[in-house]
């Protein structure tokens, strides 16, 4: 296996890069929207005091008359967006996912979804990507909360190309849209062209056999890298599919893909209950596909730690996913499904990291 497991004391350098240097998904949403707004006077944008953190700054600078600074009032921002949309505007409002979805849930439901207005909600820094900011800043239930709301489209692009393709594809969608974005430090792009990302269809990122890995958002990069490593090591040749359109869920397509494999592994930076895995199981059940499904994701509020360390701890980095996929390939039809990434795995990762921290701790002395 070519994947390195190298515990480090520091987070990856771009985890909390608020200046947008890396140019990955959420980093450039403001530029995508500002470009669209050049030709479309309906497009507006709004922020709740996180204009730079959520990478909307380019829009604010290029279209100040169509930018709404709501202050630290997310629910009010969503309500304002609904009012704007009712007058013919296409408002894209952004904040961290935890606040854009869970804190504002009944505003989304009542003022955007019930009214079926074209409000666009951009939740950045989703999953556990806020790391040691803690569970208040994690969005590990947003898919579960939002996928049950009528009229709402839920999108989860894996990279910049997918983000732009999906934003463009939904500009004229009649109802509300929620975009679930990462922190913008997910690795090299998955897609080379926007044509590879078609709204409403899952995209096959790696074609293989045996194990079908279903991923979304920032887990697509890790799943892709895990598949490449497993293939190079002649351990497995999994198929990797990116479900960037979570709602409407491409049920028929996923069921057909699953039917052509021996086992399915769903990887998500979200609670395993109510998220992508639940949608996959439902799709297979409704289409009569009896292939076993392993759900791999969060099962509790996360512990504290730098983002990259959390992904490693929860087995959501490439190395962890590779372990999970290898285990699934070895026991494709094991009886009652136990988590393929368990307490022992997490304990091992924690001890390795604590040892690295002990050896490499900075010279800080508290008195």
């Amino acid at each position: 296996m070519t994947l390195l497991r190298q515990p480090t004391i520091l987070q990856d350098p771009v985890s909390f890069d608020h200046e947008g240097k890396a140019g990955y998904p959420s980093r450039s949403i403001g530029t995508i929207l500002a470009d669209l707004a050049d030709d479309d006077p309906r497009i507006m944008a709004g922020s709740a005091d996180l204009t730079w953190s959520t990478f909307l700054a380019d829009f604010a600078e290029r279209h100040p008359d169509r930018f709404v600074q709501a202050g630290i009032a997310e629910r009010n921002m969503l309500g304002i967006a609904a009012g704007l949309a009712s007058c013919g505007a296409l408002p894209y409002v952004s904040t961290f996912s935890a606040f854009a979805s869970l804190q504002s849930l009944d505003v989304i439901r009542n003022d955007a979804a019930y009214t079926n207005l074209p409000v666009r909600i951009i939740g950045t820094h989703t999953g556990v990507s806020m790391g040691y900011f803690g569970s208040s800043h994690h969005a590990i239930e947003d898919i579960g909360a939002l996928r049950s709301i009528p009229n709402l489209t839920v999108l989860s692009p894996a990279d910049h190309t997918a983000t732009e393709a999906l934003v463009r594809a939904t500009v004229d969608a009649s109802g509300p849209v929620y975009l679930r974005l990462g922190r913008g430090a997910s690795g090299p792009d998955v897609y080379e062209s926007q044509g590879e990302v078609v709204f409403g269809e899952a995209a096959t990122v790696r074609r293989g056999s045996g194990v079908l890995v279903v991923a979304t958002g920032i887990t697509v990069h890790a799943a892709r890298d895990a598949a490449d490593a497993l293939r190079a090591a002649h351990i497995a040749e999994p198929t990797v599919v990116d479900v960037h359109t979570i709602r409407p869920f491409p049920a028929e397509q996923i069921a057909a893909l699953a039917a052509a494999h021996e086992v399915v592994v769903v990887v998500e930076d979200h609670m395993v209950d109510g998220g992508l895995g639940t949608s996959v199981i439902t799709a297979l059940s409704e289409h009569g596909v009896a292939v076993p499904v392993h759900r791999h994701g969060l099962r509790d509020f996360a512990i504290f730690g730098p983002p990259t360390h959390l992904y490693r701890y929860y087995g959501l980095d490439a190395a962890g996913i590779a372990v999970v996929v290898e285990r699934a390939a070895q026991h494709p039809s094991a009886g009652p499904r136990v988590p393929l990434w368990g307490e022992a795995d997490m304990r091992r990762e924690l001890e390795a990291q604590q040892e690295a921290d002990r050896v490499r701790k900075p010279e800080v002395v508290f008195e």
Partner: protein
Amino acid sequence: MTMSIESATAAPTREELAAQVRRTVLLEAEIAGSGHYGPSLSCTDLLVALYTDLLRVDPADPDAAWRDRLVLSKGHACSALYAVLAQRGFFAADLLRTYTRLGTAFGDHPDMKKVPGVDFSAGALGHGLSVAVGMALHARLRADGARTVAILGDGELNEGQIWEAAGFAGANRLSGLVAIVDVNTVCVDGTTREVLDYEPLGDKWAAFGWEVERIDGHDFDAIDGALGRFAQRHSDGGRPTVILADTVAGKGVPPIEGMAEWHIGYLGGADLDAALLTVASTGGN
């Protein structure tokens, strides 16, 4: 007495229009077997005044982009709004016979997708002022002078999002926005003073950057005056206006006036007959 809901053929005075609206509110409740009498009758005169004197709307083109907009944030008072919209000709009053019945457009909280003239859906309290702020922002962007009205309940002011929106509107000097608080002093569990006392209301709104008017919400001349001063401030580019309208819950039906117990209830039989007679007498008939 026959019980029917009919269009006005001639309604020369606002008192008569208001009496007709109150009558419709009572009859809608008769259809449902339940009615939000208190909060619907308290804002009836305000709604009549708004749709008679201020709002520039076209019942033949209810979605016209240039129109003034009204958000009934206290959506539970929609039986009065339906009556006023029917009176203005947005739809035939006879449609209100379906009020609350299976498959109707007219539920006990308003749905903008179903009822012509309803500018925004409502029901969950605390949402409407934010929506109205968005509408007022868009009107400012369009620069067509459209006004936005939000009608709030005084109990609804307990909702924190109201103050997020109030702070935003004040800071952004949204002069085209008027919030009208129907200060009927009761909510469900008792009087607003008993449940959660938010007075002095005027000081709070003023602190958030609003021009404050406090009026008798059943005095048409007073309502006109406050709306006129709002319109002038809008022209002058001033601050947003809040009209604290002191009202009486259940206004027009003396046996239930001012009673939290009649926030929702049912007046049937002889009680309804008496209420209809009393309401008719207030219209100058």
